[in-house]
């Protein structure tokens, strides 16, 4: 299993019309070694920024991120060989007109021999049952098929770590289930952000991100309970009852680690 280390990472971006830069993540230190790691939190909390740090898509303003010792800024090429990234919307990442061509494109990075590349692309598609759809336009595929294709294209190069940014957001129930089963069967270390709390329950460790900080870090049941409680804060009266109950249910389930200064 890979080891990803974030050492006092802060990410800031400048925003037009604002004198000071906006802080997206603040002083994050994490050691990610578990096989399945989930990241949950509200929209705009910093989940996607956290995931993008792991593949070098976002560079830290302060601190360092290392994947098996490789710095995501100085050794970004090495990092991207190790860390595959799947976007929320597969159409954002499928750049070729058909599945076969897109998987082939992934393999161009490492394999020059066209015949070898094509054989590998076929086996990658077959693994996900996508071979019959290989020559179909990506626009003619269903949402689930596209998501599986995006996964196949990333996994074709056999990365050590798979990072997925809200992979189930655009999927219906059936395709969500298919995705869950597929992820469960992967040999790779999986790190994903999600609003699907059922999917979060499949993880070994779950981080709750709130306003650019890790608000909770622990087992899935306790993390989900913490997130529910966090989300219920500030809601109009009547909306907090069930969240309170869930916090009570989850309180003793997992040895979670609420972060200092956080609820």
């Amino acid at each position: 299993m890979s080891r990803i280390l974030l050492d006092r990472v802060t990410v800031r971006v400048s925003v037009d019309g604002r004198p000071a830069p906006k802080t997206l993540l603040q002083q994050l230190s994490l050691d990610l070694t578990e096989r399945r790691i989930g990241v949950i939190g509200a929209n705009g909390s910093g989940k996607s920024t956290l995931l993008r740090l792991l593949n070098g898509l976002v560079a830290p303003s302060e601190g360092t991120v290392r994947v098996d010792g490789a710095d995501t800024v100085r050794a970004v090429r090495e990092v991207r060989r190790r860390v595959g990234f799947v976007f929320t919307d597969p159409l954002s990442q499928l750049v070729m007109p058909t599945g076969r061509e897109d998987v082939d494109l992934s393999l161009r990075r490492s394999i020059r021999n066209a015949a070898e590349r094509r054989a590998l692309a076929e086996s990658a598609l077959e693994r996900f049952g996508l071979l019959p759809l290989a020559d179909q336009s990506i626009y003619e595929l269903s949402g689930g098929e596209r998501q599986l294709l995006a996964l196949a294209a990333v996994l074709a190069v056999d990365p050590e770590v798979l990072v997925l940014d809200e992979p189930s957001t655009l999927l219906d129930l059936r395709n969500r289930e298919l995705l869950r089963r597929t992820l469960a069967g992967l040999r790779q270390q999986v790190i994903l952000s999600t609003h699907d709390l059922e999917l979060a329950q499949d993880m070994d460790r779950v981080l709750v991100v709130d306003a650019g900080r890790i608000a909770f870090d622990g087992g899935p049941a306790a993390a989900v309970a913490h997130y529910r409680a966090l989300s219920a804060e500030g809601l109009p009266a009547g909306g907090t009852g069930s969240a309170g109950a869930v916090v009570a249910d989850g309180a003793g389930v997992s040895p979670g680690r609420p972060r200092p200064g956080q609820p």
Partner: protein
Amino acid sequence: MSGHGFLLAAYVPGTSLIHRSPLWLKFLLVVGCGMASFLIADWAVAAAALAVLCGVFLLSGAGAARLFRAVRPVLPVLLAIGLFQWWQLGAPTAARIVLNVLICVVAASILTATTPVQELLDGVASLARPFRRLGADPERFALTIAIMLRSIPFVAEAFSNVRDSARARGLERNPRALVLPVIITTVAFARQTGEALAARGLGEPGDADD
């Protein structure tokens, strides 16, 4: 954004003679047609050449409907050019110019309809290999061409969607309502594509050389 519109015909799997022809021959056809479009001075010759090319396209088994879909996006522009040239230089010249442009589009469509994108990429990378001595990266060059081909239908579709939205709001005569959203959508698409390529480690110097 569906991205269904195509300026050039998308690849159609097949085993026709055109499919089996070597890539260099198809490249030569496109380059030859591009050059011929400057040299052909008679509209009747241009019409004959276009008819032959359409015949070659149909021989590939890609179908007349696909040929029409490939040509359709340029028809409004060609109509405008044709009318202007007719007014300025007369009917024969207008016909020759329009037919010559169609020759280029159909020739390029023969190439794209009968050659998988991977093969095109390999071909472009091979063609660009001699420029490696000058510091060029053939793989990046091939990738750029592939992204360009993929982007044409997207931009055409973006324009079509924006035009529909403008029409629904009664703004079809407002150039700002038509042009600005297309520019914004296209820039967003370019950023998104760049990010997707970066995440997959594509387009970095020295790919496939390790």
